[in-house]
């Protein structure tokens, strides 16, 4: 056996998705294990270089805020796919559908009758004083009661049974272009391996997205709604994805300056004069979509857009104000919220969470900072986060101060021993922690999930932070047609 490929045992005992405790590969991964064993040394390295070259040439890059030198960076791509069995996927899918239904019901309620608050399930201040709650939307019904048309639900595993939701993303979840491009890359770079596994396709995602967007077009619009993708522009970190999606959807990629609003109708400026717009898949945050209602200095949206939206002449996806549902503080109530609306148990688990706003919880958290992950309620992208076991003393003391000044802003979770997957890097393969972001689409005609999602991997040994801005990479996610790879 090639010593280079020896799999290093992790210091933390955790669930490895490929290898059982006794070192043997699970049935699902049997072919992958064999491939890793039999492929000549250097193959993975050369494939990785190839992938990097291809990605760079296509221009799949992302920008890191505040990092001028590397204004356009690649997200490292790992050639070893992450596998899910058929049954595992069905369980996960059912959970995702349930989760997103509940999120939409919650948003409809919060901006409408507020029954969940009156029933005392969620404290009113948590919702109405939330940064992502938009008072401007109060009393407004989103078309078809769909608020989060495109949701990204971050999933982690700790054993071969349960899926845990780490975070809901109800605003503008990104990463779906990587899911699609990673698949293309795998078909190109490991065609045999791919052909041997019956992998459920993801390439129909753009079609599903288009169908979902069409289904929510305003009732008054013509039979062929004009759908556009609204991007903040090419200096946005996810610009590649915006243009990628517009291209795959076959719709225009517009910037704020391309839109005008006249008498509550949105138009785009074209070489043939103004053309009416019916559905906007917007990748611009709430605060910037209309200088007449939100940030007055914004040029990323269009003046009057909210007026057109509220009068029902254009549909925005996702809806304005949807962010209140993916808040980390609301997250902790998701089991109760699910029971309240559906009368059923949540199919996906929540990571147990201490709400630091509650004095007992705060005390516990302060006493156990070195064991916990503390997150800022409104933080994203892995910023404003303390990973206790990996933090220095100063970092912990720093966070203690932050917690004491504004406990409401924080939640804490146990350090999960996230599952690991075999991951290749220069000269070897070793298990690395992973998570999964499946993309869930909601339209007036139902909920759609393409099998798979974006697997993010923490490339640093032992690291639990998978965010691309923090040195994470991605893998292709293969949902197999069967529960085990046929030998």
């Amino acid at each position: 056996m090639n010593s280079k490929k020896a799999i290093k045992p992790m210091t933390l005992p955790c669930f490895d998705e490929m290898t059982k405790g006794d070192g043997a590969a699970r049935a699902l991964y049997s072919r992958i294990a064999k491939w890793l064993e039999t492929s000549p040394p250097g193959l993975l390295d050369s494939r990785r270089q190839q992938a990097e070259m291809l990605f760079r040439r296509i221009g799949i890059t992302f920008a890191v805020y505040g990092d001028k030198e590397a204004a356009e960076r690649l997200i490292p791509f790992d050639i070893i796919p992450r596998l899910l069995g058929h049954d595992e996927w069905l369980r996960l899918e059912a959970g995702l559908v349930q989760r997103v239904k509940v999120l939409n019901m919650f948003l409809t309620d919060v901006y409408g009758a507020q029954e969940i608050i009156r029933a005392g399930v969620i404290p009113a201040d948590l919702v109405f004083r939330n940064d992502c709650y938009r008072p401007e939307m109060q009393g407004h019904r989103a078309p078809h009661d769909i608020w989060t048309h495109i949701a990204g639900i971050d999933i982690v595993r700790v054993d071969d049974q349960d899926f845990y939701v780490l975070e809901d993303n109800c605003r503008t979840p990104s990463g779906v272009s990587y899911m699609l491009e990673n698949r293309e890359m795998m078909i190109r770079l490991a065609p045999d391996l791919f052909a041997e596994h019956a992998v459920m396709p993801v390439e129909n995602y753009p079609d599903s997205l288009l169908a979902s967007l069409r289904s929510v077009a305003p009732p008054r619009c013509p039979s062929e709604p004009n759908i556009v993708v609204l991007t903040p522009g090419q200096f946005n970190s996810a610009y590649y994805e915006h243009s990628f999606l517009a291209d795959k959807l076959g719709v225009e990629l517009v910037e704020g300056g391309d839109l005008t609003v006249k008498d509550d109708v949105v138009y785009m400026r074209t070489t043939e004069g103004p053309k009416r717009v019916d559905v906007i898949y917007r990748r611009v945050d709430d605060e910037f979509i209309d200088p007449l209602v939100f940030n007055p200095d914004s040029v990323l949206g269009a003046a009057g857009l909210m007026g057109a939206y509220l009068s029902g002449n254009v549909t925005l996806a996702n809806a304005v104000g949807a962010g209140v549902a993916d808040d980390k503080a609301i997250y902790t109530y998701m089991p109760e919220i699910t029971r309240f609306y559906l009368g059923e148990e949540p199919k996906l688990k929540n990571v147990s969470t201490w709400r630091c706003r509650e004095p007992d919880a705060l005390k516990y958290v302060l006493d156990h900072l070195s064991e916990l992950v503390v997150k800022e309620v409104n933080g994203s992208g892995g910023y404003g986060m303390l990973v206790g076991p990996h933090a220095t003393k100063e970092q912990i003391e720093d966070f203690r101060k932050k917690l004491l000044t504004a406990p409401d802003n924080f939640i804490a979770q146990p350090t999960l021993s996230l599952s690991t997957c075999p991951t290749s890097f220069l000269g070897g393969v070793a298990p690395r922690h992973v998570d999964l972001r499946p993309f869930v689409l909601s339209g007036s005609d139902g909920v759609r999930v393409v099998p798979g999602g974006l697997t993010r991997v923490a490339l640093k040994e032992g690291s639990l932070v998978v965010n691309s801005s923090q040195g994470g990479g991605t893998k292709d996610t293969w949902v197999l047609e069967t529960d085990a790879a046929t030998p």
Partner: protein
Amino acid sequence: MRASIQYHLQISCAEPVRAVNQVLRLTPRGFDGQEIKDWRVDVLPDARMRRSEDAFGNIVHSCCHDGPLEQLSIMAEGDIETYDVAGVVRGLPEKMPLDVYLRDTAATQADKDLLAFAQDALSGEKDPLGRMHVLNAALNEACAFAPGEGESPRPAKEVFASRTGSARELAQVFVAAARGVDVPARFISGFFLGDEGVGRAGAHHAWAEVFVEPIGWVGFDPALGCCPRDEYLRIALGLDFAGAAPRRAAAFGYAREDAAAVLKVDVCRQASWHGQQ
């Protein structure tokens, strides 16, 4: 007080702009303290005015002009009757959950100084309504009222630090301070119909309202150190000035345009019209 009101806002652009979109919050609603007999909002050049109601219950007119445009007039006029109800606001549809009025906005964030000031001022007073009177008096005492208004008011903490501000700015300070001590508060934009103080300084006036159990919403004017009386015409409410602003506009053009606004208000006091006053 019965009055005929004419309000005229003249916008002049330094260079012609290609198009202007604007929203106007210039239409008062009736409640126990005021009755609106007749009201019109108009713009020049002519444009289609769309009337709607925002989430806070304000009546909003929106309109779009295609350029090139150098001059823009906005008129609001009508007949109203106001009554002295000691600042208590009843008879308005309240659509917003009360907790919303505890939200911080960028313009109404209280810093340590303002918070300490409010807590200090309130230390001796237990009665909820009394506390707000104390706060209003304290702010009126601490901050000088500088009539007139710039383009957009400075954030509350900055205004408080400078101890001087316009009616809008002081109203935002009051809102910030009230929310800082957990009292729901909102910003009110309106007209001052009396001739003392602000009358000369411009038509616009602004004050604050706080929610006091069990009375409900009560107005406070930190600029003049009183509660609104029948000389106040209440027009729009919001979490801060930006949410209740009489006019918000965005222009398209080759370059950013500065709109130089000329404000003119003619308030006709016709006390003889009606016996009461």
